[in-house]
């Protein structure tokens, strides 16, 4: 009985993934809940041009400050008469790609550093790890702010800054995992069979890094969205009239006394988005880490 799934796995690659996901959903419903929320956010970002009732940057002074549930404007309008719901939906198209690019920058650069450092060791490890230590010496947000301040405040530079901030996390994680993997017998066997370092890394090391890295990617995405919102709130990320949640809170805060929804709605969107990614990362870690499973 116990060998059957393995045989199926060997013959039909799609099968075990489906079984694994179903099993994961049954044993860890939080993964399904959080995964569903994240999927929904991606769908919103993807479909924003089709589901937005209005142009998110079209100014209509006659419609300014309409409260939520106004006819034609479910979440009301801002000080320039722009539809808040449309701006919220388009805001997801800013936050999610920023998080995606920033995490990709951190993952690729940090992952490469961690691989080289962990696999080759020696002087390369010593030098690269001191560099990572120096990056870690900066509080994350301060480093991101400093980079954006130097490069100039805009969304692209915010993405680069958040990506650079994420590098040390991946470098440390990947290095630690590679150091463990290097001691494993299958790596030694592969080496003794004459496999090149590149082949060992690509065929044997990287596939074994995927699970912990996926968990970290999910958690980093939450951080990246939070950091982008913070930079935009401070005026260092997305610039007007881009419909960005952090920037919308900044401008909405001015009208807190009479029109609180202008700041509260985008704030809730950021919180729900970051919460979804954090919950997904947390529950994936619980589900996939054998130590926590026991």
């Amino acid at each position, binding site marked *: 009985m116990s060998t059957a799934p393995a045989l199926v796995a060997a013959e039909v690659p799609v099968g075990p993934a489906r079984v694994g996901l179903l099993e994961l959903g049954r044993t860890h419903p939080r993964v399904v809940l959080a995964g569903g929320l994240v999927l929904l956010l991606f769908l919103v970002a993807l479909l924003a041009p089709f589901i937005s009732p209005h142009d998110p940057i079209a100014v209509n002074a006659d419609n300014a400050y309409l409260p939520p549930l106004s006819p034609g404007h479910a979440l009301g309008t801002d000080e320039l008469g722009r539809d808040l719901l449309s701006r919220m939906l388009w805001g997801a198209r800013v936050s999610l790609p920023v998080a995606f690019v920033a995490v990709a920058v951190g993952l690729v650069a940090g992952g490469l550093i961690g691989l080289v450092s962990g696999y080759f060791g020696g002087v390369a490890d010593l030098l690269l790890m*001191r560099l990572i230590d120096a990056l870690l010496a*900066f509080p994350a947000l301060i480093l991101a702010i400093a980079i954006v301040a130097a490069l100039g405040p805009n969304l692209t530079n915010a993405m680069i800054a958040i990506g650079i901030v994420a590098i040390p996390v991946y470098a440390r994680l990947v290095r630690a995992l590679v150091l463990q993997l290097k001691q494993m017998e299958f790596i030694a066997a592969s080496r003794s069979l004459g496999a090149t370092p590149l082949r060992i890394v690509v065929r044997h090391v990287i596939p074994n890094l995927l699970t912990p890295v996926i968990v970290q990617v999910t958690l980093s995405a939450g951080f990246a969205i939070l950091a982008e919102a913070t930079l935009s709130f401070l005026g260092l990320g997305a610039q007007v009239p881009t419909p960005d949640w952090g920037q919308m809170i900044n401008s909405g805060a001015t009208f807190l006394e009479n029109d609180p929804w202008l700041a509260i709605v985008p*704030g809730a969107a950021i919180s729900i988005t970051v919460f979804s990614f*954090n*919950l997904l990362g947390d529950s994936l870690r619980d589900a996939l880490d054998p130590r926590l499973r026991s």
Partner: protein
Amino acid sequence: MTTYVLRRLALMVPVAFLVTVGVFMLIHLSPGDPALILLGEDRSPQAIAAIHQELGLDKPLYVQYVTWLGRVAHGDLGRSVTTNQPVTIAIAERLPATAELGAVALIWSLLVAIPLGTIAAVRRGSLADHIATGITVGGVSIPNFFIGIVLIFFLSVTFRLFPFGGYVPFNQDPVENLRHIILPAIALGTAGAAINMRFTRSSMIEVLNNDYIRTARAKGASWRRVVFIHALKNALIPVVTIVGLQIGGIIEGAVVTETVFTWPGVGRLAVESIFNRDYTVVQGIVLLAAFSYLVANLLVDLVYGWLDPRISYA
């Protein structure tokens, strides 16, 4: 112990060196002539030449770095481009307000985290535990500027219990000082409270499974005594690590909170300086933030070993 301290200090040297290189390169990262960045609007050829001479920008980069490092070592972080005030003094004037806010935020975070983390651990799997876990994930997911805005909306705008923002020095009016600090401290300390609660919970669960806890119970000690006298003391050791790092990172959180509450601290100075393109001030604050973090890391390592005798210094 002395050997460990010396080794730990020696390890800090290359990192500190790289940090200074990074902070120095901050101005040089920007595209274009750093003198133009430092000058802002006043870009006359004379002013540009004066800045080039003052900063030695015509010299090789490593010479510029060594000269800058020499000045920093003597406490000279340069002068603010906008106010011409020495950066060290500009930071020193704002630091007490940030330290005060950070201290109250930390007290708030511990007052929330330790009791809730302990309850969640003692009643593991209960509704209280699930609520505490929810608060933990929520606390780190809600941006502190949004917490600040929600607090202002409810407690300042709607119920008029606290002022919108601003600062009153303690020696001028202690009551008003307290009224002004409560909301920003809650906004700043909530994420820390969530993290500390998580650490308290997991550490407490681990400690409660130890043999000496079972022995204490077997000897007839009440559950309350076991939890609060025997377990909590040891469970808080990992929390000390995190709290130490939070103290080192106060400036980071203060950047946003001080902006929301117009609190006249170092964080707000950083944001103002970025918009004024006052890069010497930004450079000084980044250097301060990085070194506070480095020193906090070092102290945490040392204190951790002192608190937990099982940790070897060998």
